[in-house]
């Protein structure tokens, strides 16, 4: 079958023979054709988000899977043996074996929002050795998201200020009311970013929501198991088969919910643990928020 993509031939490299910096550079180069913000891509580093147009590379969500598959095509790994997660399970994890094609399983890339986080993912999954010195300069997913939200907010405020400046009379008064609200939001968010405990608390809320969903699903599973138990004695084979399908579906949902819970748990934990690289990025976005707010306040 002739796929359009096959025009791009890539020679895959063993991840254990290159430095994290090399891996990062290859990953970044591999997504070049998807980057719609060329200026941001040109100055991209390991902490530049793939998505988003303000500070990101401008990759569209329709190419998200292409990022992961681009990484898979470029590297070889020894983690190639499919090992069932539990006895008799069809689900598997990858363990050490012969050198072969890199495979990133469903959900494993959930936190890989930047090239640096993609390299971290490869290290976490055992495809390449951990390099703490490199990881010190990789922003956590929590901060990539938090900082990204800050830039969006500052950008919206700047645009609104520029728009309000050009208006007169009643329209200007209405626009200024909006500017005032945006300034208040920017200041609130600045305060959240200033205090890592506040940011962690905000992320903790997402974790709590996800935990509630996970617990609710467990309750749902218990009810289904109770129904199966109740029906087993009756011998209604069709109804029992239906319930078994329901049980399997809930277990799939539980698996997804658990994966999501892991993401929000890691995010909540990382939000409360700010490192120098994150301090710097937070300082940059706080400065942008403060400048945008100061500019807006000059409007009166």
């Amino acid at each position, binding site marked *: 079958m002739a796929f359009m993509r096959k025009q791009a031939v890539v020679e895959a490299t063993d991840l254990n023979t290159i430095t994290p910096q090399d891996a990062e550079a290859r990953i970044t180069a591999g997504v070049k054709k998807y980057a719609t913000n060329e200026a941001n891509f040109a100055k991209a580093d390991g902490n530049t988000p793939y998505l988003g147009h303000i500070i990101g590379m401008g990759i569209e969500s329709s190419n998200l899977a292409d990022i992961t598959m681009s990484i898979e095509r470029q590297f070889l790994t020894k983690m190639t043996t499919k090992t069932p997660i539990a006895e008799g399970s069809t689900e598997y994890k990858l363990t050490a074996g012969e050198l072969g094609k890199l495979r990133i399983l469903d959900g494993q890339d959930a936190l890989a929002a930047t090239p640096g986080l993609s390299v971290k993912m490869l290290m976490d999954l055992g495809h390449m050795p951990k390099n703490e010195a490199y990881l010190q300069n990789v922003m956590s997913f929590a901060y990539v998201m938090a900082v*990204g939200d800050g830039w969006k907010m500052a950008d919206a405020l700047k645009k*609104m200020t520029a*728009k309000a400046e050009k208006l007169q009379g009643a*329209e200007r008064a209405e626009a200024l009311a909006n500017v005032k609200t945006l300034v208040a939001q920017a200041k609130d968010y600045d305060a959240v970013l200033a205090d890592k405990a506040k940011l962690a608390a905000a992320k903790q809320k997402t974790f709590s929501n996800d935990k509630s969903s996970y617990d609710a699903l467990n309750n749902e599973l218990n*009810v289904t198991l*109770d129904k199966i138990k109740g029906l087993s004695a009756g011998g209604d084979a069709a109804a029992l088969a239906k319930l078994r399908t329901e049980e399997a579906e809930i277990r799939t949902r539980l698996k997804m919910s658990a994966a*999501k819970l892991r993401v929000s748990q890691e995010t909540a934990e990382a939000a409360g643990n700010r490192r120098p690289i994150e301090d710097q990025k937070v300082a940059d976005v706080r400065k942008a928020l403060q400048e945008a707010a100061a500019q807006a306040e000059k409007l009166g």
Partner: protein
Amino acid sequence: MALSAEDLKALRRQWTVSRAVAVPLSFFVAATARLRFGYRLPEDIDRIRDVIWEKLDAHEGPVIWAANHLTLIDSFLVYWAVFPLSRSLEDRRIPWSTPEYTNYYKLGGAWKSAFIRGLLYICRCIPFLRGGEDAAAEAFRQNAFDKCVWLLREGAAVFVYPEAGRSRSGWFEAKRPKDFLGKLALEVPSAKFLCVYLRSENQIATTVRPPEGDRFRIAIDLIDGARPGETNAREVSQRLFDRLAELQNEWWKGSTLAKNCGGNDVVDLKAPLLRENFSEDLADADPEWLERHLTPRELAALRKAPDFFKTFWRFFCAKEACHKALARTGLIVPHGAFHEIEVDLFRRKAVHVSTALQLDIRFTDDDEDKLHCVAVLRGGYIGDDATAGDVVWDVAEVPAGTAAGAFARERALDFIASCNDEIGSAAKLAVSEEGGLPTVLWSGKKQDWSLSLSHSGRFAACSFMVS
């Protein structure tokens, strides 16, 4: 079909037994809700009860309780919220319930099952069978219906969920009425509907029970059953559904959660990057790439679809729109977690797999150039070709040399202003960003309109909800 003498005897016996235990049972329900699950009623529950009981006291006839349905223990919770302990001797007012047989009557081993059956018996339950089209299932349903009619004619109260099951979207949809309650009211014209919208503050999806420790809020009213001259069950049901929908809106006015949860997505079908994983004739695609986006069920549907390329992007477009609608509820689907949302293009539904929340989807633009999909979880009706919905949208080409994102925002504000005479000018509006989601500001106030923005290649689009 009339009830047999045996049915009547059994029903009378159940009534006698349940009457004898009504007081301790009411204490048991209240204590379990409060102490076991830590649930709390609204602070002004006494005032709410006073108002509704004044209406109930003024009505001599039977009452049909009708409530929204989100959890398996709703009947107990509604009873606890509406019925003060001081009135638990008012036998005629204590409602009979109609739990689904398959959900409650065969739960767990012999002892547990016997306990639950016993509890349901003294709680005045009439098992109901919603599934099955065979003669036995029909007879089961008819028998339960006849029991409800008999009880109402005896002046009792009967509790039925108008939606006939737990709402999979977490939203009571008035545009899809069911006839059962209308039929019941027509059989007993002296009956009134007690409409109840009860929900705990953090109840997002359909669950076994509300989150522990949650506080409930309630909106409630007593309205006419069948009015003189009404002969059409749908007409009666529609009036009931409309009132419940109004109560739902009242409930949401007091909520900190966003009521309107909608999203949109546009796909430029001519964008070159969209084609690179497909074969040159666009009739197939890289299987690994497909598997990263679609669930096995979706893949099977794709393989049967006539237009492979476009169908794939329909799935994708719908998933993205749903992703945005879900984000409004606080349910963040991680980027790239495409399997978290499963789309059924034929039924125009999508499911958020881990919570089982169901969304409605609708393709507003589907031509050779582009796809545009809107999705609604809650807050209003998505609409169809025959009925206007509560979502409005706009799709436009991005002028050359213009940044698509900025164009989408400005165009959205112009569009919103054009949809509302009161706004008049887009200058009065602004887009703010909260938690990465666009929100409209009007005169400095946030609007719960669920603005959604999207752009792809040559196109930019927006949608918002007017409910």
